[in-house]
């Protein structure tokens, strides 16, 4: 069971109270970008076995979007943080590195 804590209302609940929103921290390529960039923005998603950054919405609760860093194999949640975060903080990355020394990083 995946347990998430909503940073907006502070509720800890299991995943059926939330709605998944796919990969987080995507960089948008819009008008003026190359076809390759646009294709990657539009369709290419990470599907890692391990550390993953995701968007979630507290659909049955406060209704707010937030971001979560979790492990896809163990369902361990490293952190949940506000949706208005353009990239994972250095603090969070350090925390994940400590727990997953062989993690290849965000790239």
């Amino acid at each position, binding site marked *: 069971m995946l347990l998430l804590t909503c940073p907006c209302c*502070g509720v800890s609940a299991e995943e059926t109270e939330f709605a998944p929103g796919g990969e987080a921290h995507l960089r948008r390529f819009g008008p003026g970008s190359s076809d390759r960039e646009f294709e990657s923005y539009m369709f290419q998603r990470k599907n890692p076995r391990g550390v993953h950054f995701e968007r979630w919405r507290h659909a*049955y*609760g406060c209704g707010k979007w937030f971001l979560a860093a979790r492990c896809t194999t163990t369902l361990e949640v490293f952190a949940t943080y506000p949706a208005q975060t353009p990239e994972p903080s250095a603090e969070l990355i350090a925390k994940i590195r400590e727990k997953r020394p062989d993690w290849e990083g965000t790239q």
Partner: protein
Amino acid sequence: MSENAISALPGAVSEGFVRVTEAGPCGMITLRGEMARLAFALAPLGLDIPGTRAVTQAGDKVLAWMSPDELLLMLPYDEAPGTARALQDALRGDFATIANVSDARAVFTLHGAHARDVLAKLCPVDFGMLAQGQIRRTRAGQVAAAIWVSGEDEMRVICFRSVAQYMFDLLTIAALPGSEPALYS
């Protein structure tokens, strides 16, 4: 407002190890916007702005925290249209939304010492943590619900009016005598 407004399931009652009743017409106003501005508009009503997931009460009016930018004001049904208009006037020009949602919702009351046990069967929530004066938005079965402890051995469930029959059946079946999980109390 209609003179002969009726609630979703007028007079619906079921007796199990918890008594489930439909609460009848309840006035509800949803307020959305910056909390500080909402507090300003609500000041004349004498209600304190509730903290995160809390409920405050003043006489027959109840104010519940719904999300970081949303409050729900519960009041007698007949007062809702007038109060909504007054709030709208107070917030004119502000980036805020006031809506009278009294007829869009259904409210059920659970009476009995085991009300938490009934809800524990339906919601992914530890109701041992839900104290009096707190509200929890979650799902009950397959629909959204807001649950708060309204008094000693009394809990209230708010859901959308369109799913009122589903919610009533759900609560009735969860409260069937002989099916007590006895998780709390």
